[in-house]
């Protein structure tokens, strides 16, 4: 799965949240990372993170859609007590990310740029508790 496709898929989920009365506060693309273990025969996946403020209906619908999607190999929704403005540790750790990216690039070259590795979307949504109650 190409980065553009991942972007498109993330867009559809973002609009899905908006349509169900939620709000996307933050969105991060962590890029293609190697997984710590094989998930559904995949060794690598694209990670996408959303910080979302939404009620349970929107989250349920989002999770339902992600379960149906063939391209999402794993997702997780986490409820946060507070929203942090700062980017997640995954983004701030630049040195580590760069190192990882260069290694991934090299792997891709050895594969001959084949895109048979299916993309993975990791979603994690943030529900502020006040929003859930309303």
């Amino acid at each position, binding site marked *: 799965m190409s980065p553009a496709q991942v972007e498109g898929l993330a867009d559809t989920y973002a609009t899905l949240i908006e349509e169900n009365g939620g709000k996307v506060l933050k969105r991060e693309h962590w890029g293609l*990372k190697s*997984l*710590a*273990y094989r*998930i559904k025969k995949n060794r690598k*996946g694209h*990670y996408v*993170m959303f910080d979302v403020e939404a009620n349970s209906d929107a989250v349920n619908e989002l999770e339902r859609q992600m379960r149906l999607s063939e391209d999402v190999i*794993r*997702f*997780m929704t*986490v409820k946060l007590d507070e929203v942090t403005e700062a980017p*997640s*540790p*995954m983004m701030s*750790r630049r040195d*580590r990310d760069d190192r990882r990216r260069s290694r991934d690039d090299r792997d891709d070259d050895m594969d001959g740029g084949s895109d048979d590795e299916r993309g*993975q979307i*990791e979603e*994690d949504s943030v529900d502020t508790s006040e929003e859930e109650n309303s």
Partner: protein
Amino acid sequence: MAMGGGRRPFFRRKKSCPFSGPNAPAIDFRDVRLLQRFLTERGKIVPSRISAVSAKKQRLLAQAIKRARHIGLLPYIIR
């Protein structure tokens, strides 16, 4: 006490919790590098009696590690 004096074989330095105090790191399941310090080389969670993490923080830490494992950031086992 017999063992209480300075440099007996059983003397143990008092360790403090790495997640307590003014500039302690926040426990976050996305912070893989931080979590990795609390895993053994086989990928198990280090017991708090070794790592000196307080009981409260150990619960949060275990939760964060399990979340990171679920989304494939950390391994369940390293063979």
